[in-house]
């Protein structure tokens, strides 16, 4: 979700950056798509994936969760 936040990404880009197996990336994309956390964006270069508002809300929750506990004494 974070990788697709700023700009839509292709599957190839995600495979390269996230460094997971192809099947794992596909399953993750499928999981996020079916829950409307990311959406497909069609352009001239093909299909790209972009984080939806729902995905952004989930990320905000994640960041706030980590923020609360990542306190250094």
């Amino acid at each position: 979700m974070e990788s697709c936040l700023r700009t839509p990404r292709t599957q190839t880009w995600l495979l390269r950056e996230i460094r997971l197996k192809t099947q794992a990336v596909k399953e993750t994309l499928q999981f996020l798509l079916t829950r409307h956390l990311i959406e497909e964006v069609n352009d001239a270069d093909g299909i790209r994936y972009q984080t939806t508002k729902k995905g952004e809300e989930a990320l905000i929750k994640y960041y706030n969760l980590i923020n609360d506990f990542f306190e250094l004494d």
Partner: protein
Amino acid sequence: MENTENENNELMISQRSLLKKIWKINRLFNIYFQSLTFFLLYSLFYSGYLLYLFITGQITPTLSQRYGVFGVVINTIQVVVLFIMFIYFIYQNFVYYSFMRRGKRAIRKIKETYSNIYSFEYRLHQGIVSYVNNITNFFKPYSKEKKNLSDTVTLFLYMNFIFSLYIIILMVSLAGIGETTLVDSPFMIFIFLTTVASWLVGFITSFKIRKNILKWEKIIPKLKIWAQELEDLPSNTSSKSEILEDEQNK
């Protein structure tokens, strides 16, 4: 439009707040593991040089001079124990090297998405989740009911402290040996002092790490709840993704 901007701002604010903490945490881990690495390298060099002097007969241990065979046995045991401790530290460095490498990769990704330092443009960052996942995945195996994370970390840090202290004591006792002592060599004094300095830095940072691990341990179950909430979201399985359709058509 306004809602989108507000959400973006909220995202940026939460990211920025987290980034500041990540830089501090990363610095703490870097200091600790660099001190561990330097300690290992310097003490290896020092001990290797000692061994060389022993083998070439340039120096003779005092114990074997005084106590004969018994002294030789004791010296041999000391060398074997030293060797085992080095293996322990080399193994640790090897294990934590991959942890540090993944952390560096995530930090590099975050820095790539940093806005120009001269502009006030805020940007959304990438790599924060990777960095946090690296830490939680590393500590997760130890955070179970039977194995308490803080106890495991305390034991690990305590063993580092004791083993490294023993290495230093051995280096001191082996240094004042026979007619020639390594105290006369400025270079070896320098190596010895840097070894002790690395040990001291590691010792101080280990307290800070241990103190904070207790807090960080609480993140792991919360993240599980967050992940569960995502799984529990209603899923639209009727509309299949084009990912799988394309695969089937190929």
